[in-house]
């Protein structure tokens, strides 16, 4: 088991190194950063000075080493467009994205599990069938259209919720900003969180439903019924518990795509997070921001995948059999 963990960690580091190389190559070979930063009126001296400040006059391996060194410390140099430290900009934007991802993750979990159980228990009911059909349409809808639809309904037509921005935010501890503490902040969270979480919600719902239908057929559920337990106790204590293992792992893996799809949601709602920053960076070919975002999101993805893989061991004892010595089928 230890060998497996070591191999997984080594794999993760390798992935990060590959991504780092991609990020660095972008830095080095895409466009001319000096061109991007200086305006029309520039002198040769300006160009030379900037090249030196950015370290572009050094040889390739030196630059790569410097990049890795700096990246490990969260230092990605200056944004071509804003002329500020990329690390600072990212840090300032990160709370917005993490809060959005957190809320939509919770929404996807709670609504997904709830609706999944409901549609499994009332399998033949009208409401359950309607929900299942709707979920099919929901999966086919592109995220940005869902966002626009919600804005149209709740902002333009009904005027209940804001259509863009984060509302009023409170600063916590000097570096974290939160929208949880003000009314406008909470209101602003609702639509983006639903938009972002909807796809994951339908995924979890369908998974829970399938697993529940499977479990409800098992003998021990029939025995529980025979013992005269109440339906509620059977459904939630006996059945749901046994469906949660795959749900947890899938949700864990989906966390990564929530962060990626936040790019779309943040653009629709002009949410001031890292995703919107990334899109703007692409539009203006702001390479340091793109590279830093890539590294940030890779660390998150690889970390999540690693944790989920290791969680399998904790949850499912069957996997703990040593792969090299014993063959289990």
């Amino acid at each position, binding site marked *: 088991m230890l060998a497996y963990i070591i191999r997984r960690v080594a794999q993760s580091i390798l992935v990060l190194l590959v991504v780092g190389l991609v990020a660095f190559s972008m830095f080095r070979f895409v466009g001319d950063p000096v061109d991007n930063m200086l305006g029309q009126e520039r002198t040769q001296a300006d160009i030379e000075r900037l090249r030196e400040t950015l370290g572009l006059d050094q040889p390739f391996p030196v630059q790569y080493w410097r990049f890795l060194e700096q990246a490990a410390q969260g230092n990605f140099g200056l944004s071509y467009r804003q002329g500020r430290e990329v690390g600072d900009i990212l840090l300032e934007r990160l709370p917005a994205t993490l809060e959005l991802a957190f809320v939509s993750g919770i929404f996807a979990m709670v609504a997904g599990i709830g609706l999944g159980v409901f549609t499994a228990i009332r399998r033949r009911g009208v409401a359950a069938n309607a929900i299942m059909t709707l979920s099919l*349409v929901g999966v*086919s809808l592109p995220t940005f259209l869902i966002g626009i639809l919600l804005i149209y309904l709740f902002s333009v037509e009904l005027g209940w919720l804001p259509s863009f921005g984060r509302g009023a935010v409170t600063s916590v501890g000097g570096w974290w900003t939160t929208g949880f503490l003000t009314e406008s902040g909470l209101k602003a969270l609702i639509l983006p969180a639903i938009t972002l979480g909807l796809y994951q919600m339908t995924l979890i719902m369908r998974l829970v439903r399938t697993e529940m239908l499977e479990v409800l057929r098992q003998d021990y559920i029939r025995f529980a019924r025979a013992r005269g337990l109440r339906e509620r106790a059977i459904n939630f204590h006996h059945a749901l518990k046994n469906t949660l293992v795959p749900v947890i792992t899938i949700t864990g893996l989906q966390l990564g795509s929530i962060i*990626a799809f936040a790019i779309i949601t943040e653009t629709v709602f002009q949410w001031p997070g890292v995703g919107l920053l990334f*899109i703007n960076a692409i539009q203006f070919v702001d390479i340091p921001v793109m590279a830093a975002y890539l590294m940030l*999101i890779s660390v998150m993805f690889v970390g999540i995948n690693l944790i989920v893989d290791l969680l399998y061991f904790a949850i499912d004892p069957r996997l703990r059999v040593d792969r090299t010595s014993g063959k289990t089928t």
Partner: protein
Amino acid sequence: MSDTPLSPVREARAMRRLKRAWDSDFAYSFRRAPVAVISFLVVLTLVLAAVFAPLIAPHDPFDPATLNLMNGFTPPGEANAFTGEFFLMGTDDQGRDVFSTILFGMRISLFVGFAAVLLAMVIGVTLGLVAAYIGGWTETIIMRIADVQLTFPAILVAMLIFGIAKGITPPEYRDQMAIWVLILAIGLSDWVQFARVVRGATLVEKNKEYVQAARMIGRSGPGIMLRHILPNVLNPVLVIATISLALAIIAEATLSFLGVGAPPTKPSLGTLIRIGQEFMFSGEWWILFFPAVTLLALALSINLLGDWLRDALNPRLR
């Protein structure tokens, strides 16, 4: 498609072939699935409308000479208050006919979608075949790359490739190149599915007798892969291609909507939705509504068609 009439013999042969196609299991299961028939008709209509856009479109939305600013914001189905002109789906702020822009936008969406899937298919099928047939280090490297790429959602990979490609092209060519960059970005982000499926199928096929026979008579590796194995692993590729097409069209729309895709001078459906969104708050709903519905109809019917195709081509479900 020649104008000369077919000779009676060839005509009879063509008729027989048609009859056989009509009687096949495949055609039968198609006729028995109303959802598939309807989706197919929708896709066919939209594709034809896109292909013949210059003939169908009542206006040329990209010719400034035919635009009249007085026609701006004409609601759908009403005559314009100043010019008295009529527009089926209304006009946008510059007096462009929404119906015509949709037809031309769909052209770009479909072109990017088809080309991107084709690119992904060629790369994926080639790498999958090579990986499985040659094995060893080649296989390890190819499949490792696939694994790493699969860690990241396709749309993120596409955005990144778009950003890099945009950085490499000089600014004055960016608008012109945007369509090709989009195809490259979406195609490169989507090959993994093809490679994995083809590799799996090839691993099964390559040990069968017909492959050994081909090797025995001295056919070359590429010849065996292309002429013998490829036709036998093509079914799942078709299914993935259909579903990929819907995904590619949505991906293109998403990128264009985010402003990192088709430029406003050559708008795709996604660009049109991006433009239309600005007018949602002021009540000109049609500029947004019609492109969105078109995109939805296109993606949904291709998806449904793909679903049916997967079941129809799966021998285990018969």
